[in-house]
């Protein structure tokens, strides 16, 4: 996320100066052309049209698309229509899921990575094993957990001898979604942490051990600062990924009970693509997007405050 630091930009500018004279701008543009075509049509135009659409009343296929200014936003914020109520319910569902799953998806994989960071036979095997659910994809995971958690036929209730409606009641529904997501993606974050841990110089641990630092002290004084950049990356992508959750609630809880586990993005898709209401759904997208950008900003600032050195 924090991909190119400013020092780097200036370095590459300086480095490449002598060669730049030799290539014509057309060469650069030719190399850029495939990217620019797709970038224009599928990045620039969409951002512009999302803003444009959110300022119009627009029902796909109907002739009129009158300009309404901020009315779509005003209606959503006023909370006086069913659509606004349902949208904020979706935002709340997204928020609940993110708040429940992101902390676990940030901390547990770090523990797993530290476990796998040790040297023991079959380490590669275990690493692959824990990562394997990720490659199965959300649909397989959704079907599988729908089965595991079925109230009557599911092994979870049968093995534990309990009767919990995992997919149709709250808060059990949230537990289901979080556990399934954890099982599915824990390996993904773990391998990122693992690579970061391997980049932390061993000498630091040796020195700390010599100085008498215990495991906890070594963790807070060496491990965490050593992986700050990756930690920030993981925090950012995990929050974004959790906030974009859709497949699990579509397949596992099927948005039940009622529509309580329907996420904001699910409602946006329903409103815009099923209900053809492009104007309102675009305004919803903008609100969710701005929320996520603010959240990402807070993460970045938070890490800066924590003294995360930008390498």
């Amino acid at each position: 996320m924090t991909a190119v630091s400013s020092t780097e930009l200036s370095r590459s500018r300086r480095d490449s100066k002598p060669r730049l004279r030799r290539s014509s701008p057309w060469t650069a543009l030719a190399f850029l052309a495939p990217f620019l075509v797709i970038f224009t049509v599928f990045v620039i135009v969409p951002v512009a049209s999302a803003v444009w659409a959110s300022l119009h009343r627009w029902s796909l296929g109907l002739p009129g698309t009158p300009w309404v200014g901020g009315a779509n936003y005003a209606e959503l914020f006023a909370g006086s229509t069913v659509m606004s109520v349902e949208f904020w319910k979706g935002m709340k569902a997204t928020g609940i899921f993110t708040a429940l799953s992101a902390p676990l998806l940030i901390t547990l994989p770090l523990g797993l990575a530290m476990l796998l960071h040790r040297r023991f036979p079959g380490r590669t095997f275990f690493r692959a094993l824990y990562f394997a659910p990720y490659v199965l994809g959300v649909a397989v995971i959704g079907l599988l957990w729908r089965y595991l958690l079925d109230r009557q036929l599911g092994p979870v209730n049968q093995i534990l001898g309990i009767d919990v409606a995992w997919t149709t009641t709250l808060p059990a529904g949230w537990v289901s979604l979080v556990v399934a997501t954890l099982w599915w993606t824990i390996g993904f974050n773990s391998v990122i942490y693992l690579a970061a841990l391997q980049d932390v110089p061993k000498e630091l641990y040796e020195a700390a051990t010599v100085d008498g630092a215990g495991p906890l002290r070594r963790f807070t004084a060496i491990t965490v600062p050593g992986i700050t950049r990756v930690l920030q990356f993981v925090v950012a992508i995990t929050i974004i990924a959790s906030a974009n959750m859709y497949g699990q609630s579509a397949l596992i809880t099927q948005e039940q009970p009622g529509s309580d586990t329907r996420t904001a993005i699910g409602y946006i898709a329903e409103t815009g693509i099923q209900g053809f209401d492009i104007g309102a759904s675009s305004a919803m997208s903008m609100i969710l997007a701005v929320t996520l950008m603010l959240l990402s900003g807070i993460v970045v600032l938070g890490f800066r405050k924590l003294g995360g050195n930008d390498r």
Partner: protein
Amino acid sequence: MSARRRPATPASRRTFLGLLGSSALLAACAPSIGAGTAQEPARYREGEYTGPRQRLQFWNPFTGGDGPAMAAMVDAFNAAHPDIEVVMTSLVADDMYTKVMPAVGAGVGPDIAIMHLDQLATFAARNTLVPLDEVVEGLGVDGEDFVPAAWDNGVYRGARYGIPLDLFTMAQYWSTDALASAGTPGPVLDARGYTETVAALQSNGLAQPFWVPPSWQLFVTLLAQFGGRLYNPEGTVAEMGSEAGVQALSWMVEQIDRGVSPGGVTDPRTPFKNGTAALLADLPAAIPDLQLTAPDLEWRVAPFPQIGPQPGVFANSHNFVLTGQSQRDADAAHASQTFVDWVSRNSAPWIAGGNTPARASVRETEEFRSSPQAALATEGVFEVAAFLPQIPGSREIAGNSFQRAVGEAVLGGVDPAAALAFAQETAQAELDDVNELLG
């Protein structure tokens, strides 16, 4: 991927401009998305289609027990028409209505579809469907043979878009054994009969004999019986929050409050099948399901009882429609017309799907008269059938207004009056929006 390849031609200004041009072209397309062009009415074409083999796509929402019946009709049509191959796709109704407009626009949708009567305006206004007035006139289909209410409701803004295949109304199902042993053989006829039957069943050991789900069709039925309606006939004013609406929804909630039904019911068929309940309010789609999955249960079906002061029952109808895609050339249009006409006239196998054929000539067959749903096909029912009016975006509006209110009140314990007032306000706002966008 090797480094040994012939030297590539240096990127020239021309290549770049070419690429840039195509990018601009793509980009220029984007902002023009939106209103399609108005559809020309389908023209009538003489006789059955013969000629080069045509392949037609036929979408319908028959994913349940009615699917095989429709598949049989399509197979029969294909067998009788060597020049036409109809490919049937059954989609979950919500999916179908989501996909049909963009799919038809892209030319990868259906040529012919079955849509619910209340969906015609939605897709007519969006130019997905073509008017059928000339076709029905040419075919000599003038509504004479059809249930009048179903036929008359297939018109939006003066143009006909649907040819009814069937109609279906809210019904009551009862377990004959349970009611007989309670001493109140069915059917339940009115509010008093209902109270007596429930009391008898309860004292006979069945604590919760009638499970009430958040069924909006049940709500519309009761709404009509209490003298209300969802909208004015022009589809410009929402009226669901009326006193009648509150009475209708309160009646449903009352069954839960009085313990006749448990709360939180989403699937009332299962308890009916396994004897936990003895009465069921459901559509005729339950008929093939009960026959298939509860073969040992003895049950009967009849029109839903008159709970309110006047008769009334929710009604809807599956309709044949032709999409803009079917009019891509004369042959496809002719073949599509042939299919609709033939299946409509030969709709007897549809009886197995549990619904009532829209054509009187099919209802007069012995096959229909001996079917369970024959009990629902009375003139009395047809006269008081409450169809939903033709409103573009009706399902969206319904989902955001009265359907949601029924769910909130029945499942979520929200006060019926408050739920309906909010629903009416929302429906009114959305009606105003739609009418504004229609221009």
